[in-house]
């Protein structure tokens, strides 16, 4: 397989895997690049797709662990759990089904909850701003977002079972 085709095939899935571990977008991009480079230099592009994807995730895992030397034990547990979740729900389609499931879950939310998510994740509104707009205290906003996340997690799990 051509190198460019290999990158195109695996970049989204690997980046999303790293985001799902908690890497911020910039670090995920950096580690995705690094892992793809390692794979290309070791001729992993010639392997079967699933094998190559697993190799890339393992490489990304190791690169990420190097960045987490301060809490290595906890990081290791987290990424192992993330790997299992990824294999169960996302490895077959790079997480597209999960994104669709979340989209449907969000659509089912009441208007006020959808607006709160939009303000927080799309507009980057602070908790204080949201409290002002929603006529809540900052503590109230925190509780609301916690409840929303819990509801969304459960909804996604229901939809992907």
């Amino acid at each position, binding site marked *: 397989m051509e190198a460019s085709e290999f990158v195109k095939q695996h970049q989204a899935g690997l980046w999303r895997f790293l*985001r*799902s571990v908690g890497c911020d977008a910039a670090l995920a*991009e950096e580690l995705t*690049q690094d892992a793809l480079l390692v794979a290309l230099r070791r001729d992993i592009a010639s392997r079967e797709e699933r094998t190559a994807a697993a190799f890339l995730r393992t490489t990304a895992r190791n690169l990420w662990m190097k960045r987490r030397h301060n809490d290595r034990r906890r990081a290791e547990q987290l990424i192992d*759990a*993330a790997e299992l*979740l990824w294999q169960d729900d996302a490895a077959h389609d790079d997480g597209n089904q999960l994104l669709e499931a979340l989209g449907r879950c969000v659509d089912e939310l009441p208007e006020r909850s959808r607006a709160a998510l939009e303000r927080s994740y*799309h507009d*980057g509104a602070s908790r204080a701003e949201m409290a002002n707009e929603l006529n809540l205290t900052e503590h109230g906003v925190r509780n609301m977002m916690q409840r929303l*996340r819990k509801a969304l997690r459960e909804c996604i799990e229901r939809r992907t079972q």
Partner: protein
Amino acid sequence: MTDTPEDDAKNARLEWLLNERVGGESPPDLQHAVLARLHEPATAAHPRRGSRMLAAAMVLIGVAAVVAVSQFADNRPADNSQDGHLLNGEQSTLTNKQNPALDLVAWKDPSLVRSRQDIESLPADTLQVFAINLNDDALPALLRLHKLEALAMTVSTYERPLRGVQKPRAVYVTDDGLERLASLPNLRALVLEGQLKLKGPGIARVVEGAHLRELKLMNMAVTNDMLRGVCKAPLVSLQLHSSQTFSGGGLKAIAACQTLRFLSLTGCTHLEDLWIANLSGMKALEELYLNGVGSHTLFSGIRLNPLPEEPPGSGVTDRLLENLAPLPKLRKLDLSSGYITDKGLLALRKFPALRDLSLGSNEDISASGIDSLPKHIEKLSLVGHRSVDAKMLEVLLSRSGLRDLNLAWCKGQPDDAVEQLCKATHLTSLDVSGWELSDADRERLQKLPVTVKLPKIKKN
């Protein structure tokens, strides 16, 4: 109760999903970046993340300062609305002081791109693109857009906030990358902001190769050599905002560009009057913006870029005006925030085509100076002048040729200022933004048969 690793993983997964689905994030296209690194002879040492973040944070401080400066320099009120795709700072990059006669590109809802992938998803007939933080790898994708007429490329560390955190990330294009755009057949306008890796040849190649009409360089390391290269082409409009690395030689090069009809040096605080005087003799120049040149107010001491900030130059002085003529077609002249006196204004009689004059924040100008202005001035701005007293108002309103008068945020008005203004029936436009007006005065001005811009009503 402590969360299990599985709970943590599910929470982290949800954050990713929400950021992508609701927050608009998307996986980056890394093909070119990875292939470029793959073909490097040896793996380049990757800068440590910590040091990169520190550098980015420094740049972030600079961006905030420069955005503030450019807003001030344009005398625009702060606009907190978000229009379409662009944020306020981004919009200010594109603001053109429009004159239909010059046929400059009117920026209208350009497509916003941040990566090669974004460009590749644009329709082939896209006309205008505003690009943030592109690198050379992304530029070839623009060549597909055959109808592209206007392109802005800015380096910004102010990205859309995600989870309330501003993410600093600055990416630059180089001359080698930029010159590929020379083959864009319909490109008319190019805006470059904060592109500190550009030294000049790439810009000159695009300006010449694409037959560009308009070039705007903001917060750039604009050198005399860069201007010599760029000004060989028949540009119609050149704007050098807040750039501080060129001098008299660069201005001589600009003066040699005899097709130039629009020139803005807004916020180039370091310029000396005799350097600017090199512009004398430009036969086609119709609009010249020197607002904020030499200004100590705009001199922030904080830079967007690692370039040293030059201290303020002499800026716009009487000596400049005495040496600037002839500019036979000069119709619009902006001298705001300068150091002009009544004596200097006498030199404006040497500009036969001058119709539109901005003298805001030139504190040494009095009624006698205004009285000496050429009779053919139709539009006059004194924004922020601190002594628009009874005498000055009388002189202003006695100028029968004046059609458009801007007295926004002026101070020192007499008590009967509104009464006097109501007698000025020859005006077609009047701006008194920032004045403290009673309800009765407001009502009287609103009844005038002219377009009146009033101060905003204060909310209690």
